[in-house]
């Protein structure tokens, strides 16, 4: 297709998304943002941010899974994610230590959700062990389940699973890769960006 035709399609797609939003026809809006830990995909429902994905997860696969779990009416639309994009920019620029966003936790349930809801209690610049999180959530023996809850966190960065480490201080795992986890932790250790 010619560049002009691609431009025409892009404009038509944008108008379609606006009209669809006005008629309440969108289940999930999404957009991509650039960040120091690579490109991120942000997705939102009418209730709030439902998913943050790292490029390593394969964005098309994430869209497929959102279509299956939330609804097939998934469209690219930036506006509902502007606030999240801006707060993430501020976070990466050392100008923000916490997020003020509506989150939609519908992709998690049970103990995983409990753990994920408890994660923001670990403050910016601090870390906790998987074992400590198991204790905080009232199930001291559930260390492995805490690991699973962190590994399946649908809202990484916003819900700070990167602040959970092994008891010996080693990194454990991370959905976005260990480099991303290391980058987030060192960002938070250096609040003035020096």
């Amino acid at each position, binding site marked *: 297709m010619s560049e002009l035709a691609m431009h025409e*399609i892009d404009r038509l797609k944008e*108008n379609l998304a606006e009209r669809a939003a006005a008629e309440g026809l969108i289940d999930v809006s999404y957009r991509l943002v650039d960040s120091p830990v690579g490109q991120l995909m942000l997705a939102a429902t009418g209730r709030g941010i439902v998913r943050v994905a790292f490029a390593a997860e394969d964005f*098309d696969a994430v869209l497929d899974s959102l*279509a299956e779990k939330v609804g*097939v*009416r998934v469209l690219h639309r930036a506006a509902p994610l502007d606030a999240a994009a801006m707060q993430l920019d501020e976070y990466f620029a050392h100008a923000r230590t916490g997020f003020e966003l509506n989150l939609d936790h519908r992709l998690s349930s049970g103990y995983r959700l409990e753990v994920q809801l408890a994660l923001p209690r670990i403050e910016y610049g601090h870390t906790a062990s998987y074992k400590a999180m198991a204790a905080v959530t009232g199930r001291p023996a559930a260390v492995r389940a805490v690991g699973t809850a962190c590994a399946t966190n649908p809202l990484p960065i916003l819900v700070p699973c990167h602040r959970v480490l092994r008891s010996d201080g080693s990194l454990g795992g991370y959905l976005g890769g260990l480099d991303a986890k290391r980058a987030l932790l060192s960002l938070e250790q250096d609040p003035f960006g020096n």
Partner: protein
Amino acid sequence: MRLHGVKMKTNPPFELVVREHGPAVLRMCTALLRPGPDAQDAWSETFLAALRAYPGLEPGANVQAWLITIARRKAIDSLRARHPVPVDSLPEQAAPIDGFGPDGLFENAGLWDALGTLTELQRKVIGYHYLLGFPYAEIPGFLGGSAASLRRAAADGIKSLRKLLDVSEES
């Protein structure tokens, strides 16, 4: 790439449907309507109607055939809005001819380019008759002239297309 006939639990995200079929639907609307606002409106109405109905579409359905059906209807709506002519009902399925059925036409980007080399009259008569399914008797309501002259224009256009696309007369 998705395979037809593979059983899926849900249909793909609508964004992928627009990405995959948006350009071809625009080519179809542009070939049938005036390029510009009319074709763009028909494109938008097609995908908005598709989006409304999408959650009810059977998983694994042939999305392309479904979109062509919707786009046909929107192109007909657009033509009728500009040419209010009494027509009994929506034309039924387009009458396919060999190598020129709606599916082949839709898929074949070369054919869309070839259509662009025909006269506007030839292109429109062929689109209205073969793709939208209007009988020749109803097409003068949109384009003027007589059914016989339009039939001749379509025949000339088809002959040029066959030559351009190297489709044998016998097939």
